Protein backbone atom coordinates (compact mmCIF):
# COMPACT_ATOMS: atom_id res chain seq x y z
CA UNK A 1 0.00 0.00 0.00
CA UNK A 2 2.71 2.38 1.06
CA UNK A 3 4.81 1.42 -1.91
CA UNK A 4 1.95 1.94 -4.35
CA UNK A 5 1.29 5.35 -2.83
CA UNK A 6 4.95 6.19 -3.13
CA UNK A 7 5.00 5.08 -6.77
CA UNK A 8 1.99 7.22 -7.56
CA UNK A 9 3.59 10.24 -5.93
CA UNK A 10 6.77 9.55 -7.81
CA UNK A 11 4.95 9.53 -11.15
CA UNK A 12 3.10 12.76 -10.35
CA UNK A 13 6.26 14.57 -9.28
CA UNK A 14 8.18 13.26 -12.28
CA UNK A 15 5.52 14.59 -14.66
CA UNK A 16 5.41 17.88 -12.80
CA UNK A 17 9.17 18.31 -12.90
CA UNK A 18 9.50 17.17 -16.48
CA UNK A 19 7.20 20.00 -17.53
CA UNK A 20 9.76 22.30 -15.98
CA UNK A 21 12.44 20.53 -17.95
CA UNK A 22 10.54 21.27 -21.14
CA UNK A 23 10.31 24.89 -20.08
CA UNK A 24 14.10 24.97 -19.69
CA UNK A 25 14.57 23.64 -23.17
CA UNK A 26 12.28 26.25 -24.65
CA UNK A 27 13.83 29.03 -22.68
CA UNK A 28 17.34 28.17 -23.79
CA UNK A 29 16.08 28.04 -27.36
CA UNK A 30 14.79 31.58 -27.06
CA UNK A 31 18.01 32.74 -25.41
CA UNK A 32 20.15 31.38 -28.16
CA UNK A 33 18.11 32.91 -30.94
CA UNK A 34 18.46 36.36 -29.44
CA UNK A 35 22.21 36.07 -29.09
CA UNK A 36 22.34 34.63 -32.56
CA UNK A 37 20.65 37.68 -34.02
CA UNK A 38 22.96 39.98 -32.11
CA UNK A 39 26.15 38.33 -33.28
CA UNK A 40 25.38 36.46 -36.42
CA UNK A 41 28.93 35.36 -37.13
CA UNK A 42 29.66 32.75 -34.47
CA UNK A 43 27.95 30.57 -31.88
CA UNK A 44 30.49 29.24 -29.39
CA UNK A 45 29.17 25.93 -28.04
CA UNK A 46 31.92 25.34 -25.49
CA UNK A 47 31.55 28.79 -24.01
CA UNK A 48 27.77 28.50 -23.79
CA UNK A 49 27.99 25.13 -22.02
CA UNK A 50 30.66 26.27 -19.59
CA UNK A 51 28.68 29.41 -18.83
CA UNK A 52 25.71 27.26 -17.77
CA UNK A 53 27.77 24.82 -15.73
CA UNK A 54 30.13 27.23 -14.01
CA UNK A 55 29.64 29.11 -10.80
CA UNK A 56 28.95 32.81 -11.39
CA UNK A 57 28.90 36.13 -9.52
CA UNK A 58 25.35 36.93 -10.56
CA UNK A 59 22.43 34.53 -10.86
CA UNK A 60 21.25 34.54 -14.47
CA UNK A 61 17.73 33.12 -14.71
CA UNK A 62 17.30 33.77 -18.41
CA UNK A 63 19.15 35.77 -21.03
CA UNK A 64 19.42 39.33 -19.68
CA UNK A 65 17.55 38.58 -16.43
CA UNK A 66 20.32 38.48 -13.83
CA UNK A 67 20.02 38.78 -10.08
CA UNK A 68 23.17 40.54 -8.82
CA UNK A 69 24.64 38.90 -5.73
CA UNK A 70 26.83 40.44 -3.02
CA UNK A 71 30.61 40.41 -3.46
CA UNK A 72 32.30 40.13 -0.06
CA UNK A 73 36.06 40.71 0.02
CA UNK A 74 38.70 40.88 2.69
CA UNK A 75 42.12 42.39 2.12
CA UNK A 76 44.75 43.15 4.74
CA UNK A 77 45.01 46.87 3.91
CA UNK A 78 41.34 47.74 3.28
CA UNK A 79 39.54 45.27 5.53
CA UNK A 80 36.08 44.04 4.67
CA UNK A 81 34.37 45.34 1.52
CA UNK A 82 30.87 44.51 0.32
CA UNK A 83 29.36 45.57 -3.00
CA UNK A 84 26.99 44.30 -5.66
CA UNK A 85 28.29 41.98 -8.35
CA UNK A 86 26.59 44.14 -11.01
CA UNK A 87 29.52 46.58 -10.71
CA UNK A 88 31.86 43.92 -12.06
CA UNK A 89 29.87 42.96 -15.17
CA UNK A 90 31.68 42.80 -18.53
CA UNK A 91 35.15 43.10 -17.00
CA UNK A 92 34.49 46.52 -15.46
CA UNK A 93 36.80 47.82 -12.73
CA UNK A 94 35.15 48.78 -9.45
CA UNK A 95 36.97 49.97 -6.30
CA UNK A 96 40.19 48.86 -8.01
CA UNK A 97 38.87 45.30 -8.36
CA UNK A 98 38.48 43.38 -11.56
CA UNK A 99 37.09 39.92 -12.20
CA UNK A 100 39.08 37.74 -14.56
CA UNK A 101 37.95 34.16 -15.25
CA UNK A 102 36.05 34.10 -11.98
CA UNK A 103 38.99 35.34 -9.87
CA UNK A 104 39.05 38.82 -8.38
CA UNK A 105 42.24 40.86 -8.58
CA UNK A 106 43.23 44.26 -7.24
CA UNK A 107 44.23 46.35 -10.25
CA UNK A 108 46.28 49.53 -10.58
CA UNK A 109 45.28 52.71 -12.46
CA UNK A 110 46.20 51.17 -15.80
CA UNK A 111 43.98 48.15 -15.12
CA UNK A 112 46.82 45.66 -14.66
CA UNK A 113 46.30 43.07 -11.90
CA UNK A 114 48.48 43.42 -8.80
CA UNK A 115 49.33 39.80 -8.01
CA UNK A 116 50.98 40.56 -4.66
CA UNK A 117 47.75 41.85 -3.03
CA UNK A 118 46.05 38.83 -1.49
CA UNK A 119 42.26 39.10 -1.93
CA UNK A 120 40.17 36.78 0.24
CA UNK A 121 36.93 36.26 -1.63
CA UNK A 122 33.91 35.31 0.53
CA UNK A 123 31.37 36.34 -2.11
CA UNK A 124 27.89 34.89 -2.23
CA UNK A 125 28.05 33.40 -5.70
CA UNK A 126 25.29 31.64 -7.62
CA UNK A 127 26.20 28.28 -6.07
CA UNK A 128 26.36 29.69 -2.55
CA UNK A 129 22.98 31.36 -3.02
CA UNK A 130 21.55 28.10 -4.33
CA UNK A 131 23.04 26.24 -1.36
CA UNK A 132 21.42 28.68 1.05
CA UNK A 133 18.10 28.38 -0.77
CA UNK A 134 18.21 24.59 -0.59
CA UNK A 135 19.15 24.71 3.10
CA UNK A 136 16.16 26.96 3.82
CA UNK A 137 13.90 24.69 1.76
CA UNK A 138 15.13 21.60 3.61
CA UNK A 139 14.60 23.24 6.99
CA UNK A 140 11.08 24.40 6.06
CA UNK A 141 10.10 21.01 4.61
CA UNK A 142 11.40 18.97 7.50
CA UNK A 143 10.12 21.39 10.16
CA UNK A 144 6.66 20.90 8.69
CA UNK A 145 7.12 17.12 8.58
CA UNK A 146 8.37 17.06 12.18
CA UNK A 147 5.44 19.14 13.39
CA UNK A 148 3.17 16.72 11.49
CA UNK A 149 4.52 13.87 13.62
CA UNK A 150 3.98 15.88 16.79
CA UNK A 151 0.40 16.79 15.81
CA UNK A 152 -0.81 13.49 14.32
CA UNK A 153 0.84 11.28 16.90
CA UNK A 154 -0.33 7.72 16.33
CA UNK A 155 -2.46 8.69 13.33
CA UNK A 156 -1.86 8.33 9.62
CA UNK A 157 0.57 10.88 8.13
CA UNK A 158 -0.81 13.90 6.29
CA UNK A 159 0.29 16.00 3.32
CA UNK A 160 4.03 16.48 2.87
CA UNK A 161 4.61 14.10 5.75
CA UNK A 162 2.97 11.23 3.87
CA UNK A 163 5.08 12.00 0.80
CA UNK A 164 8.38 12.00 2.68
CA UNK A 165 7.71 9.20 5.15
CA UNK A 166 8.21 6.40 2.59
CA UNK A 167 11.49 7.97 1.45
CA UNK A 168 12.74 8.29 5.03
CA UNK A 169 11.67 4.71 5.67
CA UNK A 170 13.43 3.63 2.49
CA UNK A 171 16.70 5.20 3.63
CA UNK A 172 16.32 3.60 7.04
CA UNK A 173 15.26 0.11 5.97
CA UNK A 174 17.11 -0.38 2.69
CA UNK A 175 20.25 1.69 3.20
CA UNK A 176 21.02 2.07 6.90
CA UNK A 177 19.82 -1.21 8.44
CA UNK A 178 21.40 -3.76 6.07
CA UNK A 179 24.78 -2.01 6.06
CA UNK A 180 25.13 -0.69 9.57
CA UNK A 181 23.55 -3.47 11.62
CA UNK A 182 22.27 -2.82 15.12
CA UNK A 183 24.03 0.54 15.50
CA UNK A 184 22.18 2.10 12.56
CA UNK A 185 20.30 4.71 14.61
CA UNK A 186 23.48 6.60 15.46
CA UNK A 187 24.26 7.29 11.79
CA UNK A 188 20.72 7.75 10.48
CA UNK A 189 20.62 11.55 10.95
CA UNK A 190 23.76 11.95 8.84
CA UNK A 191 22.58 9.54 6.14
CA UNK A 192 19.16 11.19 5.87
CA UNK A 193 20.66 14.67 5.72
CA UNK A 194 23.06 13.53 3.03
CA UNK A 195 20.31 11.89 0.99
CA UNK A 196 17.90 14.81 1.06
CA UNK A 197 20.63 17.41 0.60
CA UNK A 198 21.93 15.74 -2.56
CA UNK A 199 18.42 15.00 -3.82
CA UNK A 200 17.07 18.52 -3.42
CA UNK A 201 20.17 20.09 -4.95
CA UNK A 202 20.08 17.68 -7.89
CA UNK A 203 16.44 18.56 -8.51
CA UNK A 204 16.99 22.32 -8.07
CA UNK A 205 19.82 22.05 -10.58
CA UNK A 206 17.39 20.70 -13.16
CA UNK A 207 15.02 23.67 -12.85
CA UNK A 208 15.30 26.40 -15.46
CA UNK A 209 17.90 28.91 -14.32
CA UNK A 210 18.99 26.62 -11.50
CA UNK A 211 22.57 26.48 -10.26
CA UNK A 212 24.68 23.39 -10.93
CA UNK A 213 25.50 22.84 -7.27
CA UNK A 214 26.06 19.08 -7.01
CA UNK A 215 28.00 19.33 -10.28
CA UNK A 216 30.54 21.53 -8.51
CA UNK A 217 33.53 19.52 -7.35
CA UNK A 218 34.06 21.70 -4.27
CA UNK A 219 30.60 20.81 -2.97
CA UNK A 220 31.04 17.08 -3.57
CA UNK A 221 34.52 17.34 -2.03
CA UNK A 222 33.04 18.69 1.21
CA UNK A 223 30.44 15.92 1.28
CA UNK A 224 33.14 13.30 0.69
CA UNK A 225 35.38 14.81 3.38
CA UNK A 226 32.53 14.67 5.91
CA UNK A 227 32.01 11.02 5.02
CA UNK A 228 35.76 10.41 5.37
CA UNK A 229 35.72 11.81 8.91
CA UNK A 230 32.55 9.96 9.91
CA UNK A 231 34.07 6.68 8.71
CA UNK A 232 37.51 7.15 10.22
CA UNK A 233 36.50 8.69 13.53
CA UNK A 234 34.10 5.81 14.14
CA UNK A 235 36.41 3.03 12.97
CA UNK A 236 36.84 0.30 15.58
CA UNK A 237 40.00 -1.64 16.43
CA UNK A 238 39.37 -4.24 13.72
CA UNK A 239 39.27 -1.49 11.10
CA UNK A 240 42.56 0.02 12.21
CA UNK A 241 44.22 -3.36 12.73
CA UNK A 242 43.25 -4.22 9.19
CA UNK A 243 45.03 -1.13 7.92
CA UNK A 244 48.39 -1.67 9.65
CA UNK A 245 48.41 -5.46 9.42
CA UNK A 246 46.16 -6.87 6.71
CA UNK A 247 45.34 -10.51 7.53
CA UNK A 248 46.92 -13.21 5.41
CA UNK A 249 49.70 -10.98 4.05
CA UNK A 250 53.32 -12.19 4.45
CA UNK A 251 55.52 -9.86 6.52
CA UNK A 252 57.84 -9.22 3.57
CA UNK A 253 54.94 -7.67 1.61
CA UNK A 254 53.84 -5.35 4.41
CA UNK A 255 55.95 -2.34 3.28
CA UNK A 256 53.96 -2.41 0.02
CA UNK A 257 50.60 -3.44 1.43
CA UNK A 258 50.37 -0.80 4.16
CA UNK A 259 50.67 2.16 1.73
CA UNK A 260 48.22 0.41 -0.58
CA UNK A 261 45.70 0.03 2.25
CA UNK A 262 46.19 3.67 3.25
CA UNK A 263 45.68 4.80 -0.35
CA UNK A 264 42.49 2.71 -0.37
CA UNK A 265 41.17 4.66 2.63
CA UNK A 266 41.50 7.94 0.71
CA UNK A 267 40.27 6.53 -2.58
CA UNK A 268 36.84 5.62 -1.17
CA UNK A 269 35.75 9.23 -0.52
CA UNK A 270 37.59 10.27 -3.68
CA UNK A 271 35.40 7.97 -5.75
CA UNK A 272 32.31 9.41 -4.03
CA UNK A 273 33.41 12.95 -4.89
CA UNK A 274 34.20 12.21 -8.53
CA UNK A 275 31.09 10.15 -9.20
CA UNK A 276 28.55 12.70 -8.03
CA UNK A 277 30.39 15.56 -9.75
CA UNK A 278 30.87 13.64 -13.00
CA UNK A 279 27.32 12.32 -13.24
CA UNK A 280 25.60 15.63 -12.64
CA UNK A 281 27.98 17.64 -14.82
CA UNK A 282 27.79 15.08 -17.63
CA UNK A 283 23.99 15.22 -17.57
CA UNK A 284 23.99 19.00 -17.85
CA UNK A 285 26.56 18.90 -20.67
CA UNK A 286 24.52 16.36 -22.64
CA UNK A 287 21.34 18.45 -22.46
CA UNK A 288 23.18 21.66 -23.35
CA UNK A 289 25.00 19.97 -26.24
CA UNK A 290 21.71 18.67 -27.64
CA UNK A 291 20.24 22.16 -27.52
CA UNK A 292 23.30 23.71 -29.11
CA UNK A 293 22.93 21.28 -32.05
CA UNK A 294 19.99 23.44 -33.13
CA UNK A 295 22.15 26.55 -33.29
CA UNK A 296 25.00 24.78 -35.01
CA UNK A 297 22.53 23.63 -37.69
CA UNK A 298 21.15 27.15 -37.87
CA UNK A 299 24.62 28.57 -38.48
CA UNK A 300 25.50 25.97 -41.07
CA UNK A 301 22.31 25.64 -43.08
CA UNK A 302 20.09 28.61 -42.28
CA UNK A 303 16.98 28.89 -40.17
CA UNK A 304 15.02 26.16 -42.00
CA UNK A 305 17.64 23.56 -41.07
CA UNK A 306 17.64 24.93 -37.52
CA UNK A 307 13.89 24.46 -37.22
CA UNK A 308 14.09 21.01 -38.79
CA UNK A 309 16.80 19.84 -36.41
CA UNK A 310 14.96 21.28 -33.43
CA UNK A 311 12.01 18.95 -34.15
CA UNK A 312 14.36 16.00 -33.72
CA UNK A 313 16.39 17.46 -30.87
CA UNK A 314 13.45 18.52 -28.68
CA UNK A 315 12.20 14.97 -27.94
CA UNK A 316 15.76 13.87 -27.18
CA UNK A 317 16.16 16.77 -24.78
CA UNK A 318 12.93 15.89 -23.01
CA UNK A 319 14.08 12.29 -22.79
CA UNK A 320 17.42 13.35 -21.34
CA UNK A 321 15.65 15.55 -18.83
CA UNK A 322 13.63 12.56 -17.67
CA UNK A 323 16.81 10.50 -17.41
CA UNK A 324 18.32 13.33 -15.37
CA UNK A 325 15.38 13.09 -12.96
CA UNK A 326 16.16 9.41 -12.49
CA UNK A 327 19.86 10.21 -12.08
CA UNK A 328 19.03 12.84 -9.45
CA UNK A 329 17.39 10.15 -7.29
CA UNK A 330 19.92 7.48 -8.18
CA UNK A 331 22.97 9.57 -7.31
CA UNK A 332 21.50 10.63 -3.97
CA UNK A 333 20.76 6.95 -3.28
CA UNK A 334 24.21 5.72 -4.36
CA UNK A 335 26.09 8.36 -2.36
CA UNK A 336 24.11 7.50 0.76
CA UNK A 337 24.37 3.75 0.18
CA UNK A 338 28.14 3.85 -0.30
CA UNK A 339 28.59 6.10 2.72
CA UNK A 340 26.63 3.65 4.85
CA UNK A 341 28.67 0.75 3.42
CA UNK A 342 31.94 2.47 4.25
CA UNK A 343 30.73 3.28 7.76
CA UNK A 344 29.46 -0.29 8.09
CA UNK A 345 32.83 -1.75 7.14
CA UNK A 346 34.57 0.49 9.68
CA UNK A 347 32.28 -0.34 12.61
CA UNK A 348 31.46 -3.99 12.01
CA UNK A 349 32.48 -6.61 14.54
CA UNK A 350 34.33 -9.42 12.90
CA UNK A 351 32.17 -12.08 14.51
CA UNK A 352 28.99 -10.73 12.97
CA UNK A 353 27.87 -11.14 9.39
CA UNK A 354 30.36 -9.73 6.92
CA UNK A 355 28.74 -7.52 4.33
CA UNK A 356 31.23 -8.27 1.63
CA UNK A 357 33.77 -5.64 2.53
CA UNK A 358 37.11 -6.66 3.95
CA UNK A 359 38.70 -10.02 3.33
CA UNK A 360 39.27 -11.91 6.52
CA UNK A 361 41.37 -14.82 5.30
CA UNK A 362 40.44 -18.51 5.41
CA UNK A 363 41.33 -18.97 9.08
CA UNK A 364 38.87 -16.34 10.29
CA UNK A 365 35.85 -18.61 9.83
Amino acid at each position, binding site marked *: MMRRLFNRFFVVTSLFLSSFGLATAQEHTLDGQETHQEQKEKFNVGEMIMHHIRDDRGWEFAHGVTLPLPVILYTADRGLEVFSSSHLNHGEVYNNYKSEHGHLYRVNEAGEPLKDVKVYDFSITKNVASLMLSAILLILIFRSVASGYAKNKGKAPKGLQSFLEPIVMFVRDEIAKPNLGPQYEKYLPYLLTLFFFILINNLLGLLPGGANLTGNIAVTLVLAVITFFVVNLNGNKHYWAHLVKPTGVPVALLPIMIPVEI*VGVFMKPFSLMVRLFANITAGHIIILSLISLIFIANNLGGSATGWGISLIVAPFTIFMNLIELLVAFLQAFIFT*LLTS*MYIGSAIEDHHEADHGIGYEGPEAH
Partner: protein
Amino acid sequence: MENKPGSTDPKSRFDKANRKVTSYTQYSSIAFQMLGTIGLGVWGGMKLDEWQGNRLPVWTIVLALTAIGASLYLFIKGLPKE
Protein backbone atom coordinates in the same frame (compact mmCIF):
# COMPACT_ATOMS: atom_id res chain seq x y z
CA MET B 1 4.56 -1.13 10.26
CA GLU B 2 6.57 -0.99 13.45
CA ASN B 3 10.07 -2.27 12.80
CA LYS B 4 12.24 -3.27 15.70
CA PRO B 5 15.89 -2.33 15.35
CA GLY B 6 17.92 -5.17 13.93
CA SER B 7 14.93 -7.24 12.81
CA THR B 8 15.29 -8.76 9.34
CA ASP B 9 12.93 -8.07 6.48
CA PRO B 10 10.90 -11.14 5.55
CA LYS B 11 10.46 -10.07 1.89
CA SER B 12 13.34 -12.13 0.53
CA ARG B 13 12.67 -11.26 -3.11
CA PHE B 14 13.11 -7.60 -2.35
CA ASP B 15 16.22 -8.39 -0.33
CA LYS B 16 17.72 -10.17 -3.28
CA ALA B 17 17.05 -7.24 -5.61
CA ASN B 18 18.50 -4.91 -3.02
CA ARG B 19 21.66 -7.00 -2.77
CA LYS B 20 22.00 -6.78 -6.55
CA VAL B 21 21.74 -2.99 -6.43
CA THR B 22 24.27 -2.93 -3.61
CA SER B 23 26.83 -4.96 -5.53
CA TYR B 24 26.22 -2.90 -8.67
CA THR B 25 26.94 0.24 -6.66
CA GLN B 26 30.10 -1.31 -5.31
CA TYR B 27 31.36 -2.15 -8.79
CA SER B 28 30.69 1.36 -10.03
CA SER B 29 32.58 2.79 -7.08
CA ILE B 30 35.54 0.46 -7.71
CA ALA B 31 36.05 1.94 -11.21
CA PHE B 32 36.57 5.43 -9.78
CA GLN B 33 38.78 4.01 -7.03
CA MET B 34 41.05 2.31 -9.60
CA LEU B 35 41.17 5.50 -11.61
CA GLY B 36 42.11 7.50 -8.54
CA THR B 37 44.74 5.01 -7.34
CA ILE B 38 46.50 4.80 -10.70
CA GLY B 39 46.25 8.56 -11.16
CA LEU B 40 47.80 9.12 -7.75
CA GLY B 41 50.64 6.69 -8.54
CA VAL B 42 51.45 8.35 -11.87
CA TRP B 43 51.23 11.86 -10.43
CA GLY B 44 53.47 10.93 -7.48
CA GLY B 45 55.97 9.27 -9.81
CA MET B 46 56.10 12.29 -12.11
CA LYS B 47 56.65 14.62 -9.16
CA LEU B 48 59.46 12.41 -7.83
CA ASP B 49 61.15 12.25 -11.24
CA GLU B 50 60.88 15.99 -11.62
CA TRP B 51 62.39 16.48 -8.16
CA GLN B 52 65.30 14.09 -8.82
CA GLY B 53 65.77 15.26 -12.40
CA ASN B 54 65.85 11.72 -13.81
CA ARG B 55 66.31 11.41 -17.54
CA LEU B 56 64.58 8.01 -17.52
CA PRO B 57 61.27 8.41 -15.63
CA VAL B 58 61.99 5.49 -13.27
CA TRP B 59 59.63 6.56 -10.53
CA THR B 60 56.76 7.17 -12.93
CA ILE B 61 57.13 3.66 -14.34
CA VAL B 62 57.59 1.94 -10.99
CA LEU B 63 54.82 3.80 -9.19
CA ALA B 64 52.38 3.51 -12.10
CA LEU B 65 52.87 -0.26 -12.20
CA THR B 66 52.62 -0.49 -8.41
CA ALA B 67 49.45 1.58 -8.52
CA ILE B 68 47.93 -0.74 -11.13
CA GLY B 69 48.77 -3.71 -8.90
CA ALA B 70 47.40 -1.87 -5.87
CA SER B 71 44.18 -0.97 -7.65
CA LEU B 72 43.70 -4.61 -8.68
CA TYR B 73 44.30 -5.71 -5.08
CA LEU B 74 41.81 -3.15 -3.78
CA PHE B 75 39.36 -4.20 -6.50
CA ILE B 76 39.52 -7.88 -5.56
CA LYS B 77 39.28 -6.99 -1.89
CA GLY B 78 36.23 -4.85 -2.55
CA LEU B 79 34.32 -7.57 -4.41
CA PRO B 80 31.16 -8.77 -2.69
CA LYS B 81 31.72 -12.17 -1.11
CA GLU B 82 29.06 -14.36 -2.68
